[in-house]
């Protein structure tokens, strides 16, 4: 972290163009040489309500949303002004101010749209401004936007004013708007941008201490979400079939894939439900295409049944699970890590699957590629588990990460010659033969001569015929289960582990976490070590097979470890203990499940509270003591 950073929050109502405006502004900041990280907060409704997007930008690497923020652009919720008299909308107009002030840092900046908002309606506004030394700019953004175009363009007026205050030249924003906007709205937007910029420059004191530094990227960056990482990883592995049903936040991956697949000669299917979606992916994969499906908690619950079918028929299948707060429908637009056990154990019988939980956009790409590779090489279902935060948050990633050869290989498929020469069982192709090395028996594809067999969801013999023979059962089970050991060996042998260790190897204390908490934890480790503690962190991505060896040696000499996760029941800690069978006396938990992702300060406070009681844990987090073994 650095003092020289901008954490800019644009707040308004859903449907007011908050998302698209912030996307463009984030790109502009990135183009001006900064590292960027975005965070979306939105309600489960289409129009109106309190929504914001935060963009953190710095000349140093930014890994999380950061602690609080220092620049508020409060636009007002245009949908709170409802023309229908009897419609219930509540007191929402001033939410962009009332809901956001608590987290605004001392000395921060507020721009508010006086065309829509009246600070007289905000309790103690002037007093709070004075106490916190905030710099307030009351600008009639709406009036300006209306003058040159339409009211919705007040977003642009807000950007112009922001640039004037933080000292960002307009050219990079203008260039971006020219790239992003259709011609007919471009000109009025450019006029609004310049007018607003000039107005603030001329009529206000902009020397308020919140600026962005000048910087340059060492490598060409791209601004990507975790969902993009997953979608691009899938496509680069030759995935050309996707089936799905819309559900937040999984829809992001589904729509990105759908947007591109037809152009790449692929097929996307929006179907009647999630059971069908996963079953379609199985059908396409069985016929010889690389296929995927996915959902979020509730929809993934429906996929439990086809997931087991893929396991026993040994059909390669990749599923994505984008977690949101549960149980049931829970909080559709809020992140949580409460589906870990759901994903690890769902479906009938003994579980045999691979689960990866990438920690950032770059890992989303890399691990999705690996998930496909393993699914097809080992004929096993693999799941990419991530959450709403990583799904929609954008961050800068070097373009070179994506510069990898495509891999359309679909694993062990026999040729018709091999079928002819191969051993048969009662004249039938031995699809599920026992002697497959690493547990994998080569498959034939429907349409291949002489290769017909039965892929059965019932236990079956080597040719696929249903069998309840005891010896066959044990042999087939053992063969299928042995794949996980082979996969573990393969993951262990990789040049670069999926687990990231951060901080000094010999540190006395450890933090363990998985998935999207990665960046916040790493920043917390920096703060803690600067404060004189001795802390290291490990972000675990391999959920199954679990990297026992790596975790054991990471925890070997530490006094205590804090397991940081976004759920109420310490699922990840339970998983670590279950897999390693150890560490029960040193694993403490820091839990957060209020619908907001961890900020670094939550982790710092939690750690210091647990370690020596020198801090209080943040009010919306909970510490849970070690349970013993």
């Amino acid at each position, binding site marked *: 972290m650095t003092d020289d950073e901008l954490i800019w929050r644009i707040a308004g109502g859903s449907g007011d163009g908050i998302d698209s405006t912030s996307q463009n502004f984030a790109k502009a900041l990135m183009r001006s040489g900064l590292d960027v990280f975005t965070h979306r907060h939105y309600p489960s409704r289409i129009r109106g309500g309190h929504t914001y997007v935060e963009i953190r930008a710095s000349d140093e690497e930014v890994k999380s949303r950061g602690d609080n923020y220092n620049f508020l652009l409060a636009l007002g919720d245009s949908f709170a002004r409802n023309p229908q008299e009897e419609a219930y909308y509540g007191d929402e107009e001033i939410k962009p101010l009332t809901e956001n002030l608590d987290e605004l840092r001392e000395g921060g900046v507020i721009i508010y749209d006086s065309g829509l908002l009246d600070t007289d309606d905000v309790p103690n506004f002037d007093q709070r401004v004075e106490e916190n030394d905030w710099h307030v700019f009351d600008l009639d953004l709406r009036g300006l936007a209306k003058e040159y175009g339409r009211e919705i363009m007040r977003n642009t007026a807000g950007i112009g004013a922001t640039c004037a205050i933080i000292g960002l030249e307009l050219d990079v924003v203008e260039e971006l708007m020219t790239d992003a906007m259709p011609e007919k709205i471009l000109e009025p937007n450019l006029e609004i941008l310049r007018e607003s910029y000039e107005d603030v420059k001329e009529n206000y004191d902009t020397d308020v201490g919140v600026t962005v530094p000048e910087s340059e990227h060492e490598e060409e960056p791209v601004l990507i979400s975790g969902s993009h990482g997953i979608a691009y990883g899938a496509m*680069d592995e*030759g995935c050309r079939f996707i089936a799905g049903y819309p559900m937040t936040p999984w829809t992001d991956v589904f729509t990105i894939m759908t947007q591109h697949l037809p152009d790449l000669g692929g097929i996307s299917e929006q179907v009647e439900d999630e059971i*069908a979606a996963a079953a379609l992916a199985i059908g396409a994969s069985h016929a010889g295409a690389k296929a995927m499906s996915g959902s979020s908690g509730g929809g993934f619950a429906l996929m439990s049944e086809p997931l087991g079918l893929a396991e026993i028929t040994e059909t390669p299948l990749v599923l994505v699970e984008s977690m949101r707060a549960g149980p049931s429908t829970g909080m559709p637009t809020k992140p949580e890590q409460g589906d870990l056990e759901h994903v690890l154990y769902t479906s009938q019988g003994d579980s045999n699957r691979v689960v990866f939980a990438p920690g950032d956009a770059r890992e989303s790409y890399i691990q999705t590629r690996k998930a496909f590779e393993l699914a097809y090489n080992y004929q096993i279902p693999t799941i990419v588990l991530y959450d709403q935060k990583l799904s929609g948050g954008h961050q800068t990633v070097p*373009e070179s990460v*994506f510069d990898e050869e495509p891999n359309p290989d679909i694993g062990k498929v026999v040729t018709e010659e091999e079928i002819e020469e191969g051993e048969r069982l009662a004249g039938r192709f031995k699809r599920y033969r026992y002697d497959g090395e690493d547990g994998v028996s080569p498959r034939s594809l*429907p349409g291949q001569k002489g290769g017909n067999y*039965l892929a059965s969801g019932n236990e079956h013999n080597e040719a696929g015929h249903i069998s309840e023979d005891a010896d066959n059962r044990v042999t087939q089970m053992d063969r299928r289960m042995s794949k996980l050991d082979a996969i573990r060996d393969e993951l262990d042998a990789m040049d670069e582990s999926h687990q990231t260790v951060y901080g000094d190897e010999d540190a006395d204390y450890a933090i363990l976490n998985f998935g999207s908490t990665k960046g916040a934890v790493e920043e917390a480790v920096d703060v803690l070590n600067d404060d004189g503690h001795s802390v290291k962190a490990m972000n675990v991505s391999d959920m199954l097979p679990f990297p026992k060896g790596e975790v054991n040696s990471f925890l070997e000499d530490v006094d205590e470890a804090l397991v940081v996760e976004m759920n109420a029941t310490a699922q990840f800690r339970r998983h670590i203990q279950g897999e390693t069978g150890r560490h029960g006396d040193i694993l403490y938990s820091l839990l957060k499940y209020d619908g907001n992702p961890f900020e670094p300060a939550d982790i710092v406070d939690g750690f210091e509270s647990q370690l020596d009681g020198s801090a209080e844990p943040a009010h919306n987090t909970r510490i849970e003591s070690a349970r013993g073994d």
Partner: protein
Amino acid sequence: MSVFNAIDEERDIDVNEFTPSLEPQATWCPGCGDFGVLKALKQAMPEVGRTPDETLLVTGIGCSGKLSSYFQSYGFHSIHGRSLPVARAAKLANPDLEVIAAGGDGDGYGIGGNHFMHTARENHDMTYIVFDNEIFGLTKGQTSPTSPKGHKSKTQPHGSAKSPIRPLSLALTSGASYVARTAAVNPNQAKEILAEAMEHDGFAHVDFLTQCPTWNKDAKQYVPYIDVQDSDDYDFDVHDRREAAEAMQEAEESLYDGQVLTGRFYIDEDRPSYQQEKQSTGDMPETPLAERYFDDDYEWERSYDLLDRHK
């Protein structure tokens, strides 16, 4: 050269090719109507000119689900009610395959009812055979979606208060472009209808009346049936939606009074299949997707080329 040579093969096909060389002992009860479906299907295959290797038979669970065990072809014995989504994706991935899905009345009209409606609506080019014996067989005789109102079973001891599903009408209103009913007691008609269904370019639904001698002796599937195409009493145009709907309604109502009407009820040869529709919107490749993974000359595009929009 294709990896799927069986598909290009043209030769005379023998009925016996569809009998597994080691036929597993059938677990269907003596006198079960399911034997009739198996026999009719085997006999229909040579008529359509399809070999076991270019045919994919996807089944659900239950007695009907075992069809794929006794029929020699590529088979996928899936899960209860889910044969259709598995089958239609296989067909999308490789449209050159002959894809048949099969299930029972519980499987197809109960748990899989939603998939039935949507597969018919999309008009996937495939054949769907529903073994309709008005009972859950393998779970030992519970009331099914086609059991008559008042049907008594362990799960409906006071008699079912539910009216049965109307499979033909449901298929028609959902959008199936070929709808027929046949019966295990008439193998010749069954064979003809199955062959026609497979040759039909679109979703062909065959409600196949089968008798369950163990759990449903009361069902009317044993009685002589009337072929609506052969009888002057049932003169209607199978290409006319309205007339077809009326004929279906009559067939569905009279079934429970002991009058079994079978034959073709609706045929729409003009409606493009889902594959054709999707191709016309540019959402489906011309050559089978499954072929591409074996085409050494194919150039796989990378996401790298899409990154400009993120700069």
